Structure formats: structure tokens, C-alpha cells
């Protein structure tokens, strides 16, 4: 059962005449998470394009016509790359490159490191149902711990690690 404590004025901060609990500020909000996601998307786009195009072009320039299996391999790698990137980033440090830049990290609900299964599922669902994922981010605006829908489902929170 959650312990409820009275909120003191010191635990509130004013924004546009409104007050927000300081405790909520220790969690990443919508803007931070969307910014981090945009950075990750940019990195992944460039990397995926490089992986899918560069080896094929290089083969063509150096050897001749590029084989089908190379194109397929590059395509698969480019497709799997986002899932690998998010899964291992969240599992190892809780931070993707975008998270690192913004200073936020994905953690378990209890505060620990996200497990590989948890991270893998979170990434797979997020990539497979991206629109739902993005819509779920709106949940951050009304959640006390700024949790998106997928955070609730996968029992994770996104905290600020650099203040």
C-alpha cells in the first residue's frame, strides 16, 4: 500500500503560476522523451541507410554486380538494427544515445536495471506498434511518475540521471 505524505511547499515548483511536485521532475517528461526518441531515430536512420546501402555499393564498385544474398543480409541487418540498438542500450545502461544526450535513463519500476527480456519486448512492441507507442507517450502528462502506457505495461520508468 502506498505511503501518503503531506506535500510541503518546498516539494513544489512553480511553472506559469501552476505548481508541479518536484518529485515528478525527477522523471523524464514528454518533451525530453520525444527529443531523445527523435535523436535516436535520426541516428538509426543514418546508420540503417549506411548498412543497407554502403556494402552493396562498395561491392559493386570493387568487385562487380552485388549478389542477392548481400542485399538481403544488409536489409535484414538494417531492419534488425533498431531492435538491437534499443534492446541492448536499455538493458546495459538504460540509455540510448538520445537518452544519454538528454540525461534520462530507462529503469525498472523498482529502480533496478531493465532485464534483457523486458528490454527486448519493450523495443519489439515499440517498433512494431510505433503509432500506439507514440500515443501512449501522452500518458506521461497525467501520470504522477510520468509513465507512458508502455511503461505501465512493461513496469518501467524513465528517470532523469543528470540534473
Amino acid at each position, binding site marked *: 500500500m502506498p505511503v501518503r505524505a503531506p506535500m510541503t511547499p518546498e516539494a*513544489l515548483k512553480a*511553472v506559469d503560476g*501552476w505548481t508541479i511536485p518536484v518529485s515528478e521532475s525527477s522523471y523524464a517528461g514528454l518533451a525530453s522523451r520525444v527529443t531523445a526518441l527523435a535523436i535516436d531515430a535520426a541516428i538509426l536512420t543514418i546508420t540503417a541507410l549506411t548498412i543497407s546501402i554502403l556494402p552493396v555499393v562498395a561491392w559493386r564498385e570493387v568487385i562487380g554486380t552485388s549478389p542477392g544474398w548481400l542485399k538481403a543480409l544488409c536489409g535484414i541487418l538494417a531492419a534488425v538494427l533498431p531492435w538491437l540498438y534499443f534492446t541492448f542500450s536499455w538493458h546495459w545502461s538504460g540509455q540510448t544515445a538520445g537518452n544519454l*544526450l538528454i540525461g534520462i535513463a530507462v529503469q525498472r519500476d523498482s529502480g533496478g536495471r531493465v532485464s534483457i527480456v523486458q528490454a527486448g519486448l519493450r523495443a519489439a512492441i515499440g517498433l512494431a506498434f510505433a503509432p500506439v507507442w507514440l500515443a501512449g507517450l501522452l500518458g506521461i502528462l497525467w501520470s504522477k511518475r510520468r509513465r507512458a502506457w508502455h511503461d505501465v505495461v512493461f513496469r518501467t520508468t524513465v528517470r532523469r540521471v543528470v540534473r
Partner: protein
Amino acid sequence: MTTAEPEVNVTEEATSPRGRLANVAVGTALIATDQIRDGVRSVRVKAVSVATEFVGKARGRTDQTATKVRTAVGEADQRGRDSIETRRRGVTGLMDSAVGGMVGWAQVNVMPRLVDGLVPHLISDVVPRLIDGALPEIQARVVPVLIDDLTSDPRVRELILAQSRGVLGQVTEQVRTGATRADDRLEVAARRMFGRADKESNAGKSAHDSRGA
């Protein structure tokens, strides 16, 4: 029997008048020798004591004289030093004031005219020639060395690295601050629009879920 006879002869010879005379002479000579030896010995002892006394007195006198000479030399040295120092100060002060006056006078009266006269000549004639003469040499020999020194200097590298880190850190900090502020503003806007969450957070009226702390 043959050996006893010469002994009798010697004894007899000694007791004879001639033998006695010889004995007396020898004895007198020995006594005189002893006397002379004693006299010489006593004279030598006295001479040594006199000489020792003389040497002692002479040494004392010499020490006194040396002390006096040393004192006199020390005093002369001190007086000389004092005198030289005083003169030196005087001369230095005089030189300072004279040079200062001259420099001041030159600054006011000579230098402006000199500079006014020199500058056009320097600009129109000397400097272009200097540049034309020196620039190719500087470009060919000095600039590459300077660039090499600067690029290989670890302090310069560290400086550039620190500057880059500083710029990156500043940009990152700005992005973080902006994102944090946007988080709060978005949240406030959403709560204002739907009017739900402010009931929880506004004015400290509601309780706080401690799980989020």
C-alpha cells in the same frame, strides 16, 4: 814467570818523578776539560732561557702590533665602504634626476618631432621594403615551424580538446535544460486544459504518492 816482569816495570814508571808529572798533567787537563764543559753547559742554558724570553716578548709585541694593524685596516675598510656608498648614492640620485629630466625633456620636445618626421617615411618606404624582404622568408621558414610546434604541442591539443568538450557540454546542458522546462510546461498546459492533475499537485493540498519520490 815471563808475564809478571812488565807489570813491575809499569808501576815503577808511574811512581817515578817523570810519571808523576805526566799524571798531574793528564789530571789537570781532565779537570780543566770538566770545568770548561760545565761552563759551556751553564752558558748554553742561560742563552736558551734568554732567547726563549726574548722570543716570548717578541711574539707578544708582534701579536699586539698585528691586532693594531688589523683594527686599523678594518676601520679603513669600513670608512672606505661608507664613503663609496655615500658617493654612489649621491651619484645615482644625480644621474637619476639628470636622466629623468633629460628623458622628460626628450619626450616632450624631441620624440614627437622625431616620430612625426619618421612615421611617413617609415610607412611609405621602410615598412614596405621590410615586409617585401621578410615576408617570403617568414612564410617559407617561420610559419611551418610555428604550425608544427603548435599542432604537436600537447598543451595546445589539450586546450582545443577542452574547448570542444566545453562547447559540447554547454550545448548538451542547454538541450537538457530546455527539455526539462518543456516537460513542465507541457504538463502544466495539459493539466490546465483537462484540469485533473493540478488537483493533485497544486498548492500542496493533496497528498503525494511517495513511490514517485
